[in-house]
């Protein structure tokens, strides 16, 4: 008798799966990770939160280990000396999702600067209510950048609500990502699409992308990641090159463009994060 009639098991032989797990893949994210953890801890129990830790520096690794010791989440280290290698990252995410599906009915993956919530005017009480009642193979979130004026906005205070410090957001169809899944997923680079699953675009499922919330914060972070440690094939292919260390004015221009194209964040979203 053979278990495998295709490379991935089509049926999961576990009647006792938990309703949902969430995970992210991080590399020295001391600013965004606490926000990510605080946000998802509202909707997931600590034991259902997983962090793939990629080459953290000593200080950030200590911070993560402290979180593990205090039972805030589970951490699994992954090893690759390249800072960015999106193909590898994407395969890591897919394969870890496959493993989690053995124990969970749904898996939510997000980058560390991506926060999902349900529209307060929708029928869903919360994101927990959403994933506990999830019936699709995947669903696509509606994605918005939270924008900031790189010349005028004060530095973000990460201890205060983000939506009370920034006023504009920008819808971006590129952020409509299939981040919640209930079947084995083969993500494409950046997890913007999948190769094998389809699901509805959920207007009630909002994702706020925090990359543009503070110019100095991002510029400092990117500058620490020297270009020598990037995967050269990725740079040639143009994957995630927005995170490469680069010219300060060009980067400011990108932030300003997002801000100028942005619209006022609706009142109903203020205070959610």
């Amino acid at each position, binding site marked *: 008798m053979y278990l*495998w009639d295709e490379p991935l098991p089509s049926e999961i*032989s576990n009647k006792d799966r938990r309703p949902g797990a969430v995970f992210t893949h991080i590399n020295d994210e001391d600013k965004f990770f606490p926000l990510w953890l605080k946000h998802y801890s509202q909707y997931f129990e600590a034991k259902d939160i997983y962090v793939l830790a990629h080459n953290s520096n000593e200080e950030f690794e200590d911070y993560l280990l402290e979180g593990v*010791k205090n039972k805030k989440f589970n951490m699994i*280290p992954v090893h690759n000396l390249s800072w960015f290698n999106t*193909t590898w990252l994407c395969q890591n995410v*897919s*394969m870890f999702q496959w*493993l989690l599906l*053995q124990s969970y009915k749904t898996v939510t993956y997000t980058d560390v600067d991506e926060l999902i919530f349900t529209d307060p005017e929708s029928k869903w009480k919360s994101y927990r209510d959403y994933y506990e009642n999830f019936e699709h193979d995947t669903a696509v979130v509606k994605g918005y950048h939270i924008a900031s004026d790189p010349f005028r906005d004060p530095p973000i205070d990460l201890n205060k609500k983000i939506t009370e410090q920034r006023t504009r957001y920008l819808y971006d169809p590129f952020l409509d990502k299939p981040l919640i899944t209930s079947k084995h997923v083969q993500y494409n680079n950046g997890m913007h699409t999948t190769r094998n699953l389809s699901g509805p675009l959920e207007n009630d499922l909002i994702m706020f992308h925090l990359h543009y919330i503070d110019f100095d914060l991002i510029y400092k972070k990117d500058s620490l990641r020297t270009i020598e440690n990037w995967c050269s094939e990725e740079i040639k292919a143009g994957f995630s090159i927005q995170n490469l260390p680069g010219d300060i004015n060009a980067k400011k221009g990108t932030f300003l463009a997002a801000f100028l194209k942005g619209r006022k964040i609706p009142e109903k979203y203020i205070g959610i994060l």
Partner: protein
Amino acid sequence: MEYLPQLDMNYNKRSGAVFTHVNNEDKFFPIWLKHYSQYYDSKDIYVINHNSTGDFLEVLKEGARKEEFTMITVYNDQWFNGVWQCYNFSLLQWFLLQSYNTVLASDVDEIVTVDPKSRYKDLREYYEKFVGNAVATQGYHIVSDPLNDPPIDISRPILEQRNKMVYDGFLHKPLLSRVRCQYNFGQHNTNNVNYDIDKSLIMLHLHYIDVEWTIEKDNKRSRDRWSEFDIANGFSIQNLPCDREEKIKMFQEVYSKSEEMPYYYMGLI
């Protein structure tokens, strides 16, 4: 449709990881951990924790807190579900191969090491030099006389207390691999990878070292929480709770086939 990524995009993998899947294994797990910690850095040791409880769960948590290994908890209310466990093994192996050149997947009572008479200094040297797709171990049960042998003292070397073994072709398991394996039940073979048996790589199976350990452990796992599919198909049914006499008879039968262990194995565990 191609399901598995063909590109290996990590040029900086670590040389090896080892993992096991445990469910309240207070006797075997310390032996397993002590053994593999000699050949793997603690950050390369992974433990899939399945529904462990009580003192053993605390042992695992404490070990993880002390960074002796990384623990990944999995959830299934059933004690035994061979299909599910086998997928867990395969999928974690695939995931670890993203970061490691080799992965060794072993049950908690399986001690893989190199034959002291082989050309390898130790298991670390073996996996660091390994270039095949996968390799199967030469497997032996370490056995005990259930009515005459004294209880195992866990603080002393195991092979100073048991010196009989039984060769078993069923223990030719492809436990060390460099490519994604689709393991079949019990990881005795794979569905997708060809491999050789290497007599340099031996596996000592500890299931039969102490009948009282087995009786105590098996009796805690009530039959009503086993996978019906597994029972119907006879998977891992040697671990089902059963009558004491029956278990002793099972151990006696294995012991009756045993031979002396080579003297140079004595210090291995």
